[in-house]
């Protein structure tokens, strides 16, 4: 039962990503070319409502389903890892049209070529693990 709810949330996520067209390479290109409001509208809506939701969860000290007070992780306050890592991520995002979630949704959708992107992403993650201590964070 506990396993099932996470699978179902994933199914819903896959459907949302597909029906919003956020898994589309073309939509990501349109976004980076500033030729449509679509992707900005999606992310903007999620973040605007998200800020309100997170504020209310903290303010009302809401508890999780396991009875603990909900807390939000603070990201460590550095600069280089975010700007350099983010830029590298963005290069790949524009080229493949897929961030990690949509890669897997695309495979389910039937774009098996996306498996090659996933193999690359696993390799990239592995490379980071090897050289992480040599990088500025």
């Amino acid at each position, binding site marked *: 039962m506990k396993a099932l709810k996470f699978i179902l949330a994933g*199914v819903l996520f896959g459907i949302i*990503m597909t*029906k919003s067209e956020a898994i589309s390479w073309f939509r990501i290109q349109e976004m980076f070319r500033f030729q449509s409001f679509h992707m900005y509208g999606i992310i903007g809506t*999620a*973040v605007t409502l998200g800020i309100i939701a997170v504020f209310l969860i903290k303010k009302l000290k809401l508890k999780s389903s396991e009875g603990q007070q909900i807390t939000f992780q603070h990201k460590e306050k550095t600069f280089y890892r975010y700007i350099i890592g983010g830029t590298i991520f963005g290069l790949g995002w524009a080229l493949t049209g897929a961030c990690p979630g949509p890669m897997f949704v695309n495979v389910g959708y039937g774009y098996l070529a996306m498996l*090659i992107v996933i193999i690359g992403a696993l390799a*990239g993650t592995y490379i980071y693990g090897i050289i992480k201590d040599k990088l500025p964070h």
Partner: protein
Amino acid sequence: MLELIKQPWPWYFSGFMILIIMLLLVFWGKSFGFSSNLRTLCTIAGAGKKVKFFNFDWKAQRWNLLFLVGAVIGGFISSHYLSDPEDLKLSAATISDLQKIGISFKGGINPDELFSVASLKEPKVILILLFGGILVGFGSRYAGGCTSGHAISGLSNLQLPSLIAVIGFFIGGLVMTFLIMPYLF
């Protein structure tokens, strides 16, 4: 009802539904961040024996892998039972810009030049997909998150590091789109 779901969803409803996913996970005591799964998969494949970064108790991330499995199933359900026969409503400007760099739009969600099985006969295409994937995997772990972890979860929690990461996403995306892609295809 099913007919309504089958149509492409407007941006405001899509954005609202993404928030619902984030809140579901938060209320279950988890946090929305997809790229962590890539690290977990490396660990399961045995990377922890050689590299310290992958030596962690991945079972705490089991829920996220289940979420990943669900995402694949969700993609399958969407294409088999919820698909919309209409073409993607891509902007005319994007269609014509992409044509100039050799990518044609035929109405689908992804270009045949990169993602059709036939195009995989070209070693160049395989290299592009593989290299692009490496950038996404390396970059998301280096930045400590991807679109879900930084752009959605992080910005909702007003994290300055996430804003810096998202600015990075755009620097990289713009450089790729305008300075590199015109010479790739």
